[in-house]
Every structure is written in structure tokens, then in C-alpha cells.
């Protein structure tokens, strides 16, 4: 995301090389900086993405994934034992 100098309420966002000017008037007061991720809806930025929260949510998912793989592995072993 890059903030356009001439229009403080507009920012240029980039999603996988696709760029669009976005109105960031609804994030007034937020501390926006280039590199931030924002949620866009019908041309307006609605929310700034909280990287810490994102990380903790993903960590949770990872942990479940890991636990699951451990279980699967355990299950396989037990099956081999049985077989």
C-alpha cells in the first residue's frame, strides 16, 4: 500500500501486482504506512490488518495441523503394529 501525496484520502494498494486507488477516509486516525495490509470493500479501506492477531490465529491453525499430523502418524504406527 502506498499513500498518494496529492490526495490524503486516497492510497494505492497492490494485490499480487494488481493496483487500485482506494479511499482510506474511513481509517482516519489509524496509523497507516506503506507496507500495511488493509481490508478493502467497494473501494474503501474498512480496516487495517493486525499482523499480530493474524500471526496468532495462524499459529493456532498450525498447531492443530501439527497435532493432527502427530495423531495421524501415531495412528499409522498403531495400524502397522496391528497389521
Amino acid at each position, binding site marked *: 500500500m502506498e499513500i498518494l501525496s496529492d490526495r490524503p484520502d486516497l492510497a494505492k494498494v497492490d*494485490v*499480487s501486482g494488481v493496483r487500485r486507488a482506494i*479511499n482510506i*477516509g*474511513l*481509517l*482516519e*486516525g489509524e496509523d497507516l504506512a506503506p507496507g500495511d*495490509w488493509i*481490508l478493502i*470493500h*467497494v*473501494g*474503501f479501506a*474498512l*480496516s487495517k*490488518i*493486525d*499482523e499480530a*492477531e*493474524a500471526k*496468532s*490465529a*495462524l499459529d*493456532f*491453525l*498450525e498447531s*492443530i*495441523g501439527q*497435532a*493432527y*499430523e502427530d*495423531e495421524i502418524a501415531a495412528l499409522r504406527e498403531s495400524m502397522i503394529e496391528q497389521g
Partner: protein
Amino acid sequence: MRFVDEYRDADKARALAARIAALCEPGRTYKFMEVCGGHTHTIYKHGLEDHLPPAVTLVHGPGCPVCVIPMGRVDDAISIAERPGVIMTSFGDMMRVPGGRGTFLDAMARGADIRMVYSPLDALKIARENPDKKVVFLAIGFETTAPSTAMTVLRAKSEGIANFSVFCNHVTIIPAIKAILDSPDLRLDGFIGPGHVSTVIGCRPYAFIARDYGKPLVVAGFEPLDVLQSVYQNLVQLAEGRVAVENQYARVVPWDGNPKALAVINEVMEPRPHFEWRGLGFISDSALRVREAYAAFDAERIFQIPGGRVADPQACQCGEVLKGVLKPWECKVFGTACTPETPIGTCMVSSEGACAAYYNFGRFSRDRVKEATRT
């Protein structure tokens, strides 16, 4: 793509699915309603139900903004669009929504100038570029889009663009959820809360659901793992014997919402005493209208609109589907008289509509499809 691909991972889905299955009490079934049409779309687009155990059913709620617009309002919009010198602008979703006199596409074929936009700002731009026309933006949506509409009106005012107005059909989510909860024929175990709406209103307004109705609600994001995780969180609450509002989507949704957005809405709009919801009938304080102070931008005040109420087609069971009482395929006309090509009800139009999503993405019995795609 960041914040997208990592939430579409099949392995993580399988792991979460295993947890979900493990959380289900044997012999018990669970029904969760995803309030938001965006979730309905996610569920079908990614085949999310394939990861759910048979005991868990998802019920599609009234959160598709297109699906709740009553036929009378569509006719009103067309009647405005057909005035000479008017350019009506609208999100693409509205193009095929049937009113009593056909759809926007039909009106265009008859001569109305209706243009698709992706943002109300595009409509304002059209107004700027066509000073000799009256440009009307058909505003629809929940609190997610209402701030954009309000911001656009403020901008029109500050720029002095006199040929722009808004035909306001914004609705609010809480009265709709309340109406659902109050309907007698409903059995729900919990809610998947609307992510985008909550970005604006925050999580506090849902408190009454846990407090007064004893149901859990988990605000969820729109990637399939988000939704799956919110099912998981609902089940965890139930397993632990507690009900609460939780925020699965904390990376985007602040607990207190977006105060600026709420302020902007409040500046430009005020609640309507009553508003008709397709299939649900009139719900008090469930919609927004433009305030007197912004009358110059209010299409309802500028144009004399017929304002007639059009009864839903006899065969239409959208109300039951929107309340989650019927599954889409249980509607008598589903897939025969009512198809995405020839929708009778609005739920068959938008890809967020439960019937359309089910018809387009999941029409066939899940088992048969699963069998066919087994590698």
C-alpha cells in the same frame, strides 16, 4: 496471495475437521447459521461442507444484501432509472434481481441507462463526468457498505456535485438476527457472525445473543479456514457448556469496530421506522435512510417514486430459506422454475444467495460428487 492462500490450505482443513468431528457429541446434531452471504459463498465455493461431519449442518441466514431487497424497491429503482436524463448506477449483483416489472437488464433493454459500478465513488465519478444527467447510486448492503455510501455523499457535498443522489436501501444486521431468533420455527445451536459488518460495528452489539438467547456467536473471516475455525469455536463453547461472543477474525475486526465509519453513517443516515425485507416482511428500525440535512442527495426525496409494495411470487419461499427454516432445495420451485437464469426469488440471484450458491456450486448430492472426485 497473502492472507488468502494460508487460509485455504487443505491439510490444515483436514486437521481442523478432525477436531470438529471429535468435538461432536455422539448422537447429537448441530445447526449453525452463517448470517452473512459472504460466508455462504465461501462455504459452497470451496466445498467446505466436505470437511464437516454429518452431524454438523450449516444454515444460511439473511445476510445477502441483494437477497433481502423486496420487489417493490426494485421496481422503485427501475422507475427512477427510466426517468429521462437519469443514469442509475448499481453493483453488478443487482442486474438480474426481479422486481414486479422485470430486472435491471430488462429495463436496460427497454432503454434505461443503468451502469455497473464497483464502488459508490465510481458513481460519483460518473456524475462528475455527466453534469447534464442525474446520476443515482442504488445503495444496498449492511453496515459494511453503508459507510462507503455515506462517505460518498459527504464527498459529493464537499465537491458541490449537485447531480448525484443515493437511493438508499441500506439495512442493519442486528434487527435481522433478532427477527430470526424470535421466529418460532427455528432450531439453531450457534452463529457464525458476519466478519465485514463487524469490522464496522464491532463485536459488542452481539452480546444480547449470548445473554438473552443463550447462543454462541463467533465472528468469522471469509476464507474457508476462517469459517471452519468458527464452527470449531462454536463447538468448543458448546462442549465447554458456555455461550459467548468470540472473534475469530481479530486480524481484521476490532472488538469495538470502526468508530469513524459509524460516525460517518450517523452523520448522513438515520434509522427508518420500518423497512420491508424480502421474505421476512417489515422489521422495525432495520434500515437506514438519508437524513433531512442531506435531502439534496436523497433520490427518494428528489424523485417521486411509486413506493408500492409488491407481493412476493406465490411460489417463492425465500423467507423460509432466509430464516434457515428450509434448505434451498426444499423450496418447491428450486432448480425447476427458479434457477439462476430465471430467478423467482432473490436468493437465486447473487452468488451470496443461498439458493444460487447451492445451485451453482453444490447442486448435486455431496456423496456423489465426493465419490466422483476421489483421486
